[in-house]
């Protein structure tokens, strides 16, 4: 597959994964390995920050091809996010950050105002910022201007497995973005991931659909294939969809008469 480059780092896999909701750390490790994912997000709030070497989850992610993407899940404001980012950079030794600010604990919907403010500040502080946001094309442009490395618009509420409910807006975002677009949240089945890739997303991030599957490792492998297939289809150029049959009684044939 053609490689994806974000902030100078090259990824062979366009499937990013998460670490939450697995029944055990071992299953998590096996599923992530089966997915081929090279970028794995970790909620800082779940990590023993004072002693990351001993942390059960982090120790399972020590593979040379896996890069950690700490996320700020749990923060409610830009100020808290900046503080969390600095803790993450120190504890996990990476300046990459998935910026998540969802003050609403019910649907975990991202706060656009706080996210933009935090993104500006974090870019200044030298972070590689990947913000989780609503599928809002204008916000994406504003974040681009702020200097983020990619945007991560949602397909549906996080953990909902509902698929690309924001399809029309994702298409607008993809068509006008100058940074990679990673569809995050809501992808519940390999077919959803393939669809996101087919419309030109640069990558997808999948967590719940793998972690909560009957067989997480097998599902991770299924997602790997779907993402590859979707990307190939995008590169191959999908045929247009014809809504109507060709008219048997042409309306403008008289022009040729």
């Amino acid at each position, binding site marked *: 597959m053609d490689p994806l480059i974000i902030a100078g780092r090259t990824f062979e896999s366009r499937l990013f994964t998460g670490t939450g909701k*697995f*029944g055990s*750390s071992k299953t998590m490790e096996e599923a992530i390995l089966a997915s081929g994912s090279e970028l794995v997000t970790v909620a800082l709030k779940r990590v023993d920050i004072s002693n990351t070497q001993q942390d059960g989850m982090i120790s399972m992610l020590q593979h040379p091809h896996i890069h950690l993407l700490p996320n700020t899940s*749990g923060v409610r404001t830009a100020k808290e996010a900046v503080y969390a980012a600095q*803790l993450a950079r120190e504890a996990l030794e990476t300046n990459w950050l998935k910026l998540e600010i969802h003050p*609403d604990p*019910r*649907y975990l919907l991202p706060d656009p105002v706080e996210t933009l403010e935090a993104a500006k500040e974090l870019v200044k502080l030298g972070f590689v910022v990947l913000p989780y946001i609503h599928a809002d094309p204008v916000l994406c442009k504003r974040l681009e201007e702020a200097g983020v490395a990619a945007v991560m618009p949602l397909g549906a509420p996080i953990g909902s*497995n509902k698929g690309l409910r924001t399809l029309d807006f994702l298409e607008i975002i993809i068509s006008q973005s100058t940074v990679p677009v990673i569809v995050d949240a809501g992808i519940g089945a390999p077919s959803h991931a393939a669809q996101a890739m087919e419309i030109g997303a640069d990558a997808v991030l999948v967590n719940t659909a793998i972690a*909560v599957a009957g067989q997480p490792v097998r599902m991770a492998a299924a997602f790997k294939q779907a993402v590859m297939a979707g990307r190939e289809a995008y590169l191959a150029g999908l045929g247009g969809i014809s809504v109507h049959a060709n008219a048997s009684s042409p309306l403008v044939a008289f022009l040729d008469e």
Partner: protein
Amino acid sequence: MSFEDIFRQHRWDDIKSAIYAKTPADVEQALSRSRRTPDDFMALVSPAAAPYLEQMAHLSRQLTQQRFGRTMQLYAPIYLSNECQNICTYCGFSYDNPLRRKTLSGTEILREIEAVRTLGYEHVLLVTGEAHQTVGVDYFSKTLPLFRQHFAQVSMEVQPMDRDEYEQLIPLGLHSVLVYQETYHEEDYRKHHPKGKKSRFGYRLETPDRLGQAGIHKIGLGVLIGLEDWRTDSFFTALHLDYLQKTYWQTRYSISFPRLRPFSGGLAPKVDMSDRELVQLICAYRLFSEEVELSLSTRESGQFRDRLVQLGITTMSAGSKTNPGGYAVDPQSLEQFEISDERSAGEVAGMIRQQGYEPVWKDWSAFQ
């Protein structure tokens, strides 16, 4: 507006009659919806829902797994004091119950902290009676920072306070507050709380509002099951939850369903709730709110708790001591109630793993 305005629009007897009048058709309609209303909740806790328990349990398991994954959060209660100026007919710490009173000092607290840390806990729940002279806001202001240094998440189950007092404690490390209404039946509430500040029904009822206004991260709700008709009391809890979620939308919520346990000199439950009924209630809460945390303590037996890991519960305590100093300082002091599941934290964590679930000790960092 506060919850009291909504509460006053509902009469206990009307709600009770409505619940008992629910039909299988109402239950089926509630089951078929993707979002459920307080009226649907009534159907799900009604006797008419009993034959649908298997279906409710499957839905509850699926919704819980999707939202929370295959995980179970663990916490330990730490009792700081059994001094109390309230008379509560069902409580071991009641003012009129003759027992040796004890409030942990700073050095004793450090010993308890060490003992609980050794067990692996990152989330703790601080518990006291209501005694403003000894365990008032000043005591908590001094105590919270001690806990905050050693634990990722500190919750409290103590007397209700004013908004400004909560605003004072939150920056010191207070993450969440559990405040159970005990019962929403106002007359019965007065009967069970004849003396002390707790006798003020309205002040207690509005405590979650004050907490929400103060910007707390999480609020725990619940009633003491056994005091009154549990179906009606649970409806009011659900109504309270519904109001709070809409009003204080940045706060998370948890619900507990403690069944009255025996203690020395205590009251027998007026209303019994069977295991089957408790499972029905747990599933009804999950179907009503996909995101609410549901917590089950060591009041329940080990055997029963094991079976509930996969049915909707998201949080458990384990190896609990319900007496001040119970972990290290004074293991023999009198407990608030007899715990039923006496297994250690390690044993409970092992049981959770055996079911293919991950015990989660830490799910919070204070990013400020």
